[in-house]
């Protein structure tokens, strides 16, 4: 998933209709079936909210009142089944990716530490490190692997930022040992 926000002239403000709290209750029924990380849950519920708002608006355009429209839309939606199926679709994937996402920058930092310090324990100069192909391979891997592997590109940025932060620390304070 490339989760990015772009301006969309056709997008409308979220409706302010009085049924919002009832719509929230429908979404809460879905949410009770979920046990995922907060960001994933938020995105899922955001997507479902858009669907329900569209469906209620369409039902009201056909002459149903607010209450009746929401009841009908919720019945067509299949609240509990949707929650269960969404949980099943996301649970295994999220855990495995989470572990990988956490481990990758650490692995890159370990390789970096091996690159920065000579076998006798002295730190090599940053100019020397910057001409080593291995350094750039690791730096690119820290960016590209999460970018290609994970559905959220921000994992790549986090990994990238962690790698460069470690690089700066190593060079700025060469006496650091870990």
């Amino acid at each position, binding site marked *: 998933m490339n989760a990015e926000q772009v301006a969309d002239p056709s997008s409308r403000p979220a409706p302010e209709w009085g049924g919002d709290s009832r719509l929230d209750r429908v979404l809460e029924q879905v949410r009770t079936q979920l046990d995922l990380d907060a960001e994933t849950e938020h995105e899922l519920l955001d997507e479902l909210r858009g669907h329900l708002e569209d469906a209620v608006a369409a039902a009201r355009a056909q002459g149903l009142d607010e209450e009746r429209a929401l009841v009908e839309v919720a019945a067509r939606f299949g609240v509990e089944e949707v929650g269960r199926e969404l949980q099943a679709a*996301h649970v295994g994937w999220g855990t495995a990716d989470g572990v990988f996402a956490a481990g990758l920058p650490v692995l890159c930092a370990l390789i970096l530490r091996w690159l920065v310090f000579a076998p006798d324990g002295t730190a090599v100069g940053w100019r020397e490190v910057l001409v080593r192909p291995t350094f750039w391979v690791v730096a690119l891997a820290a960016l590209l692997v999460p970018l290609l592997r994970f*559905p959220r590109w921000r994992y790549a940025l986090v990994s990238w930022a962690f790698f460069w932060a470690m690089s700066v620390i190593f060079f700025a304070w060469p006496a650091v040992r870990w």
Partner: protein
Amino acid sequence: MASQIDQMRKGTTTVAILKLLVDEEEPLHGYEIIRRLDTRGQGYFRFKEGLIYPRLHRMEQDGLLESRWVGAPGTRRRKMYTITEKGRQQLKVEMERWRTFSEQMDQLLGLEAA
């Protein structure tokens, strides 16, 4: 009868979504996908609407679809889906498989001349 249709629908939802996205040639959000599938199927394949989302997410995880959130902050955001190259290849395979299955069933049931 309803459960038989339900089983058939479950087995064909993926190919139906892929075909729709190829034909429409534009990114679509979940509600619009359901609406257009319903129009194409003339209501025959109607199912619990919300179940389209787990299916879309699985297809995305399998690399058949890509999605992006569209919408400026403060306005309604929509998650738009497009088919990937892998999805297009999968559609070709599924269409061919469906064509063979359909022909064989017609032959089996003596419907090929109908």
